[in-house]
């Protein structure tokens, strides 16, 4: 049985010409939009949202044209050299873009889904007085995210990486007067910092050991390093990826980030930014090729997160938190896929793209539901919304089917591809990973069906004074487009225009098409487990009345799931409390020790000098006596010396 193996052939990178030479405009357009909206102030309030949307739509059109020109280039990889970014001593970083198939698919995803979500936001934020600021931040995010995926060096990636972190922070805290939003933003920012330190250290190690940070330079020479160093780089990069993508052990910030406006959750915390970690690991494929250890850790992180997210998703009543844990879980699938090595990269990226469509669609649907329910997120107060919100129900339902892997929709193709790739390892771990992935698929079906049943079916449990109404066209149109993506993306990416062919210049050619377990068997098993999950959800939720308040007496498993498997508790007791103790001890040492010594010295000098000052009585006679005494002493001493 031959295992799929692919040699990574560093394809020839040619300088950009023509349209591709102007691909920096992709970043410049939204950046200019953000600058105009932020600097223009209130004067741009009236048309700010239109400008913000136009720049991203413009970037999308440009990205489509660029992708077509890229397809004509031999080797499909072009380098857009821009200017010298840092030149100091041995460090010479040129700012440039690498437009290759991998960045091209990301650019299309970011600008495509980004455009739809900008359009949606026009309607969603229509009544918000700070709508212009919202669009400015969204544009800033798109620009930073495009820089992240287009940069041709780890330094450029890092700039974009921090840029999206900033935009994410600003957007989570968009309603900064709510304490919950402000806290969530700080939590996201700090947990991201933990990951970013890992990424920064990885870049430092690269520069110290290889003297370069460009993709070309690093990937070309990484094989010359010692095994331990490569593993260190791999693990540090993984730490960065975990922080940004909400993976174990840094997953706790992502569900809290749902405090931001729903379009933000859809764009940043579902479709694009949180997948940056997957991009980083896929982009660093040549590094991970050299270090099986780090790659195994990626696998483990993916598998653990997949289950944590899925279990936590089963217990929450907040519609956005369920979707957020679903995102955590689905990104776990992607990590698992890219951790499998060459066999899994394409599967992981296909799942990433499909997930970008259906999860963005689901979040927009959730936003539409919230819009109808006076911004309530409690699913226990929903129910029976299918008739009131027909378009939302239809689009959300398609996204739901795509996510749980209903046959022939997006998730079906891409999730099966990951499970097949895991099985193709042809060892015990392959079976374990595939088992975890299948179990995750069952749990996904359970929590998503629970969400659907609680939201759209059953008796209406609405709070008093809530009158659900369908959202305006400007919001439903993007949802319809995304639901079409939910239907077709998987088929298009896996079967019709295989992503593996398009990505061949990056990840090499797939050699074997022979699988350990026939894809049909995998598909049947996954579908069977998925149906079991749906059935279980119907038995637990759909069959009986949903209580308006969450039951208090529940099993320990449910309680653990409601607390997201105690992730916050663990973080607080393992990191936050000891950190607080440490800072308190440091403050004590600083106050008593360092300040004490300095203050004591100063007080001693001051006291003794004031005591000495008392001798200055102001009486001339006292001074005269002192002088006389001194003169007598001097004379006596002289006499003693000369005569003795």
């Amino acid at each position, binding site marked *: 049985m031959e295992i799929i193996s692919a040699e990574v052939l560093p394809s020839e990178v040619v300088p950009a010409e023509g349209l591709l030479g102007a691909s920096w405009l992709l970043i410049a357009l939204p950046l200019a939009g953000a600058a105009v909206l932020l600097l223009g102030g209130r004067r741009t309030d009236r048309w700010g949202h239109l400008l913000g949307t136009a720049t991203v739509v413009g970037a999308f059109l440009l990205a489509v044209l660029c992708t077509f020109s890229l397809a004509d280039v031999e080797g499909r990889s072009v380098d857009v050299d821009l200017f010298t970014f840092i030149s100091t001593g041995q460090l010479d970083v040129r700012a440039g873009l690498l437009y290759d198939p991998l960045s091209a698919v990301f650019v299309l995803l970011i600008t495509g889904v980004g455009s739809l979500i900008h359009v949606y936001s026009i309607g969603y934020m229509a009544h918000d007085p700070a709508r212009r600021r919202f669009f400015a931040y969204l544009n800033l995010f798109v620009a930073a995210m495009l820089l992240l995926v287009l940069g041709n060096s780890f330094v450029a990636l890092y700039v974009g990486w921090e840029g999206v972190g900033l935009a994410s922070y600003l957007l989570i805290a968009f309603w900064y007067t709510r304490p919950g939003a402000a806290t969530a933003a700080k939590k996201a920012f700090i947990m991201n910092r933990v990951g970013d330190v890992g990424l920064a250290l990885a870049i430092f190690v690269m520069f110290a050991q290889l003297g370069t940070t460009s993709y070309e330079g690093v990937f070309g020479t990484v094989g010359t390093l010692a095994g331990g160093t490569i593993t260190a780089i791999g693990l540090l990069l993984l730490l960065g990826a975990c922080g940004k993508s909400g993976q174990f052990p840094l997953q706790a910030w992502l569900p809290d980030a749902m405090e931001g406006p729903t379009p933000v959750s859809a764009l940043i915390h579902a479709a694009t930014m949180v997948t940056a970690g997957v991009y980083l690991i896929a982009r660093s494929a040549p590094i991970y090729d050299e270090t099986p250890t780090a790659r195994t850790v990626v696998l483990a992180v993916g598998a653990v997160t997949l289950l944590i997210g899925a279990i936590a998703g089963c217990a929450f009543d907040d519609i956005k938190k369920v979707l957020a844990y679903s995102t955590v879980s689905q990104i776990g699938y992607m990590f698992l896929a890219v951790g499998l090595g060459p066999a899994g990269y394409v599967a992981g990226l296909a799942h990433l793209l499909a997930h970008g469509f259906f999860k963005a669609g689901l979040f927009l649907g959730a936003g539409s539901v919230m819009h109808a329910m006076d911004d309530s997120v409690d699913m226990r107060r929903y129910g029976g919304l299918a008739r009131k919100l027909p378009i939302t129900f239809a689009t959300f339902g398609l996204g739901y089917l795509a996510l749980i892997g209903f046959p022939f929709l997006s998730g079906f193709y891409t999730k099966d591809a990951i499970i097949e790739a895991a099985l193709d390892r042809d060892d015990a771990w392959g079976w374990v990973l595939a088992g975890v992935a299948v179990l995750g698929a069952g749990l996904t079906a359970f929590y998503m069906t629970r969400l659907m049943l609680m939201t759209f079916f059953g008796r209406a449990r609405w709070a008093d004074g809530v009158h659900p109404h369908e959202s305006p066209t400007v919001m439903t149109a993007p949802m319809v487009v995304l639901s079409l993506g939910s239907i077709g993306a998987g088929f298009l990416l896996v079967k019709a225009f295989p992503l593996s062919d398009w990505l061949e210049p990056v990840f090499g050619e797939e050699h074997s098409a022979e699988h350990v377990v026939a894809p049909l068997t995998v598909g049947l098993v996954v579908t069977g487990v998925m149906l079991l999950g749906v059935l279980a959800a119907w038995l637990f939720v759909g069959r009986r009345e949903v209580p308006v308040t969450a039951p208090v007496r529940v099993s320990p498993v449910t309680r653990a799931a409601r607390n997201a498997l105690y992730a916050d508790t663990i973080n607080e007791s393992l990191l936050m409390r000891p950190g607080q103790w440490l800072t308190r001890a440091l403050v004590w040492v600083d106050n008593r020790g360092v300040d004490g010594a300095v203050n004591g010295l100063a007080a001693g000098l001051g006291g003794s000098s*004031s005591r000495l*000052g*008392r001798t*200055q*009585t*102001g*009486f*001339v*006679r006292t001074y*005269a*006596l002192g002088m*006389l005494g001194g003169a007598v002493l001097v004379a006596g001493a002289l006499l003693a010396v000369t005569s003795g």
Partner: protein
Amino acid sequence: MTLTYYLVLAAILFTIGAVGVLVRRNAIVVFMCIELMLNSVNLTLVTFARATGTVDGQIMAFFVMVVAAAEVVVGLAIIMSIYRTRRSASVDDANLLKY
């Protein structure tokens, strides 16, 4: 032997002057005591000049007189000024310059 008498006299004069400076309150008396000390020194200088047969000490005594004259001018002026402002010539009343 004569040398000893002169020197003892000078020492007695100097001691009287020094004690006067230390114990008296009236600025004028203190001033006079300082003059007494200066002149006891002058006596010593002249004594040694005569004993050694040189004029160095005598010249030095003239210098001391000139300086003392100048000092009297300045010192009396200060005492006058203090007396005008404070209506007192006691040195203990002029004790503002302290800690």
